[in-house]
């Protein structure tokens, strides 16, 4: 808990100073492409509070951030908080579906691999994990579009909805969104799968060597039952932690995948912020959000593990 607050403060300090070592003055960046007199620049400076001491500026920044005032986006000419708010749900949908999918499939593959250690399935899943680790997600996404959307035409290539469907029934709209969701979600699932499978595999192997498992076997319990009742529930702990931890990271991990699929979430917003200037206020807001997401995910993982594992106790 104390650690999380410390990290949050560090992020805020970093965010404040990083964007103040920018080449050029903020007041000039804001008034670029315009002919301005020195008095206008002074006025802009005063408006932004840039004429005051750095410490005062920092506390102003803390106050503004706490109130959700993150400045005005250059690209969209609207408040950063509003722009980010609009892009939040598509990312949560994509990342949520991908995390659930990868966790379930990865866990099952991991259990299978540990149970039949050295089998073809085990070797294949290890090799698969190694290759997906080496693969940039955005390239995987492009290959999937090339194969399933362009060559086979099974799925749409980009965006979250088909334009012109606003008046269609809710069912049609839902199917339409699901069709758009499939490929980007598949990309993330494939990219994450290997890690979950690997963690679950080693966790199951470790649990299999515990004394209580030997006891269960000695009692004459069937192997499948031993696995289900004694091994898997205990082996799931590290995966739960990983899933919670990853949740924070995937939000930023979806940056390139969303870009490739023109998915209207935070990732694509990041891409537009980079290539629109760069749009510093928007980038600053996004960085803050991504960091806060990870800090909260860390906290959640700690609390969850304390809840699930009595040995760890209360945090």
């Amino acid at each position, binding site marked *: 808990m104390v650690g999380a607050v410390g990290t949050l403060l560090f*992020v805020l300090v970093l965010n404040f100073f990083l964007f103040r070592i920018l080449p050029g003055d903020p007041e000039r960046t804001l008034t670029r492409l315009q002919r301005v007199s020195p008095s206008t620049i002074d006025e802009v400076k005063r408006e932004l509070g840039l004429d005051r001491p750095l410490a005062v500026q920092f506390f102003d920044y803390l106050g503004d951030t706490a109130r959700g005032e993150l400045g005005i986006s250059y690209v969209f000419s609207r408040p950063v908080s509003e722009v980010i708010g609009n892009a939040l749900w598509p990312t949560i949908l994509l990342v949520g579906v991908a995390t659930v999918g990868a966790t379930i499939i990865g866990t099952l593959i991991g259990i299978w691999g540990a149970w039949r250690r050295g089998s073809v399935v085990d070797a294949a899943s290890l090799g698969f994990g190694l290759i997906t680790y080496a693969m940039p997600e955005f*390239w995987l996404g492009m290959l999937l579009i090339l194969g399933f959307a362009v060559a086979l035409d099974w799925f749409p290539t980009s965006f979250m909805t088909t334009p012109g469907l606003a008046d269609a029934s809710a069912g049609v709209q839902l199917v339409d969104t699901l069709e758009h969701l499939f490929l980007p979600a598949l990309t993330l699932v494939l990219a994450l799968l290997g890690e979950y499978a690997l963690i679950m595999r080693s966790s199951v192997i470790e649990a299999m060597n515990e004394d209580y498992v030997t006891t269960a076997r000695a009692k004459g319990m069937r192997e499948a039952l031993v696995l289900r009742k004694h091994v898997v529930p205990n082996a799931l702990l590290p995966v739960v932690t990983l899933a919670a931890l990853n949740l924070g990271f995937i939000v930023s991990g979806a940056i390139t995948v969303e*870009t490739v699929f023109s998915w209207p979430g935070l990732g694509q917003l990041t891409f537009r912020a980079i290539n629109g200037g760069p749009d*510093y206020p928007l980038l600053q807001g996004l960085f803050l959000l991504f960091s806060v997401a990870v800090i909260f995910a860390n906290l959640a993982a700690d609390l969850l593990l304390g809840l699930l594992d009595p040995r760890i106790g209360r945090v």
Partner: protein
Amino acid sequence: MSAQATRSARAVRRTRRIEAFKSSARLFARNRMGVAGLAILTVFVILALFADVLAPESRLSVTDAPGAPLEPPSAQFWLGTDELGRSVLDLVIQGAQISLLVGFLATAISMLIGALVGITAGYFGGWIDVILMRLTDWFLVIPFLPLAIVLAAVLGRGLFVIAFVIGIVTWPGTARVVRAQVLTLKERPYVERARALGASDRQIIGRHILPNVFPLIFANTILVVAVAILTEATLSFLGLGDPFSVSWGSILESAFAEGAISLGAWWYLVPPGLCIVLVVLGFTMCGYAFDEILDPRLRER
């Protein structure tokens, strides 16, 4: 007499090091994964070293390209052409040079910071350790891609900037590993002996600590190169790479921007990505092999 003795001590030490190196090399040669990884990497390093001969820059001219735009693979252009009519094979070969260069440069920066922080924190301990490890933890928690994006956006575009940014976001892992090793090393009897004989901190670190953490740093390095190459590709793809050089990530960026996907120009998309996968795989496989050599407990798996 005493000069004789030191020389022979030094000679003994040298033979011992050579022996240790030889036995590691033998173990590595027996590791199929490591050998395969090394083979892949050798091919790409040769490709990168001879890039200017194999794919002279004159053929990469934007205004005077040798082919027509987006030609599919043919006898003349084995991997087709890009939107300007340049050979994709030439681009990929030139890209090998930049991608590997940035990867190695970034790793060197990352190792330098990581080793410095790790050794300082582990060796001196106390409040220095507390502060440095706090800092390391903070950097570990912050999602590294957004941090890299923000740094690159603020610092501007260029090869060294990209390498520096990747170095900044990847050092904490090394720092932790090195610190842990230093903590056990500094309690060893030979360090105590050196201290009792009046050796300074600098001498102890230089003679006893550094040589013993070096293998660890080296094994870690290999895995960091893989991360660095992936990160370079990602940053270049997002438009944060050096605009004046061709890397695998920047090829993918222009392929994406020019609509190679919807045009079905697979020859433009597949080769650079495949190169990234192979090189990262090569480094990862070598890294695992070294881990097994350095940690005998892993050998039986």
